[in-house]
């Protein structure tokens, strides 16, 4: 059995001064992580405040765009698609979709790589395909 993921058009993300650096990165094909300069720790989602120290001593770095599926589910229905948490090779886990895949053979631990997908009138958003 195989069920191909429906090629859905993602809703446009709301952009703000806080997340602009992330979605500007998406426009350039870069997956941006936050980095706390107080602790050296990386975080998702990026923001101008460190979720480790609450200081604004943060910078933004590009991730390699590779990772593994931490968990997943398929929203069933006429247009089925996969919602997943992907653990980036740098460490943080992010919510995303696994696209262009057979929805009936997904597994935790599968290797994936980022693919940016146009949204409905907004910035592209990072999704993942099987590596």
């Amino acid at each position, binding site marked *: 059995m195989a069920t191909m993921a429906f090629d859905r058009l993602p809703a446009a*993300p709301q952009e703000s001064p806080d997340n602009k650096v992330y979605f500007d990165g998406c426009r350039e094909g870069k997956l941006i992580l936050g980095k706390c300069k107080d602790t050296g720790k990386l975080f998702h989602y990026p923001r101008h405040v460190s979720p480790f120290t609450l200081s604004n001593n943060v910078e933004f770095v590009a991730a390699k765009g590779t990772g593994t599926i931490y968990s997943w*589910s398929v929203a069933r229905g006429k247009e089925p698609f996969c919602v997943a948490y992907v653990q980036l090779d740098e*460490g943080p*886990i992010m919510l995303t979709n696994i696209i262009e895949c057979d929805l009936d053979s997904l597994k935790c631990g599968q290797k994936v790589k980022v693919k940016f997908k146009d949204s409905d009138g907004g910035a592209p958003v990072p999704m993942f395909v099987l590596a």
Partner: protein
Amino acid sequence: MKNPAYIVGAFEHPTRKAEDKSTAQLHAEVAFGALQDAGLSASDIDGYFCAGDAPGMGGLSMADYMGLTKLRHYDTTESGGSSYVIHVGHAVEAILQGKCNVALITLAGRPRAEGMQTGTAVRSFGAGVPDESFELPYGRTIATMHAMVATRHMHEFGTTSEQLAWVKVAASHHAQHNKHAMLPKVVTVEDVVNSPMVADPLHRLDCCVISDGGGALIVARPEIAKSLNRPKVGVKGWGEGYKHQNAGGIDLTYSAAAMSGPMAFEKAKVKPSDIKYASIYDSFTISVVVQIEDLGFCAKGDGGKFVADGNLISGTGKLPFNTDGGGLCNNHPSNRGGMTKVIEAVRQSRGEAHPAVQVPDPSLVLANGKGGNLGTRHGCGTVILERE
């Protein structure tokens, strides 16, 4: 009178579809029901507790609508479906601090009449919510996010769909005795795993119902509880906890009950093995499994085995749970099940549950609420009730 405060009134609205009533009206009806149950009147209320389901700013519009004129304490802690369990703890603390004597807690809503697709539609809290730009484009729903908790639990601990199904089977065994239950039919493990897949690995029968209705509780100081002609249900322990995505350090294997539960047990100075009945928030079957582990009824990862083979069924299992049928079979008013969890725990404590599901020795019972989304951000509240 050994406990700092007592639940002296409890009322669950019998409606499951309230096309002919407003939300404010439902709040008032459950408040009146709980006052009648307690033997008190509206003029006795000096503390009011409500959450995001109450129309208007905080509790102001409901206090106005209900004519509460003696208020000197007010708490609108919002933590989704767990709010009302947390409110019980806050009411006890307010009573201990002398801020009020008689606390009213209300919940009501009508998502069913309004045609809400609670679990399978993308829901937004509006502009400016910082996490939503990173979630809404992916079409995440309540169902898929809880399903990911189940997927991970299965991956790490070998939990099976059949084990999850036992949670629903147990709830259905209880619901058959509840004349108000939306799904009173007893179901089997096969029925659950053969029902349509909603969000892998959760089937339709792994999901709770969508219902209208509501409930109310009255918490009072010991002197007042003593003066009333009702069973003495003391609040012996209470706790709350909050969990989120932790900057991307996500661990889906536990809930905030891992914080709220130990806090409540420590206050009550009892242990999980002392608990004779537990109301466990059952938005989905997996929610119950995770909370049962986090509350210490079994080791982390053993929840699937623990709930299997009828272990949650009153009369046969070790941990009778949700004897009203819970959210899975009875109701889930306003998509917020914490209130009804406390109400059924109070019924059990009083010995007023349906005779077919009443536990023989309800000396200590527990209610746990979970509100928000198990897979993203949520809060849990735990209360331990002692029958005196």
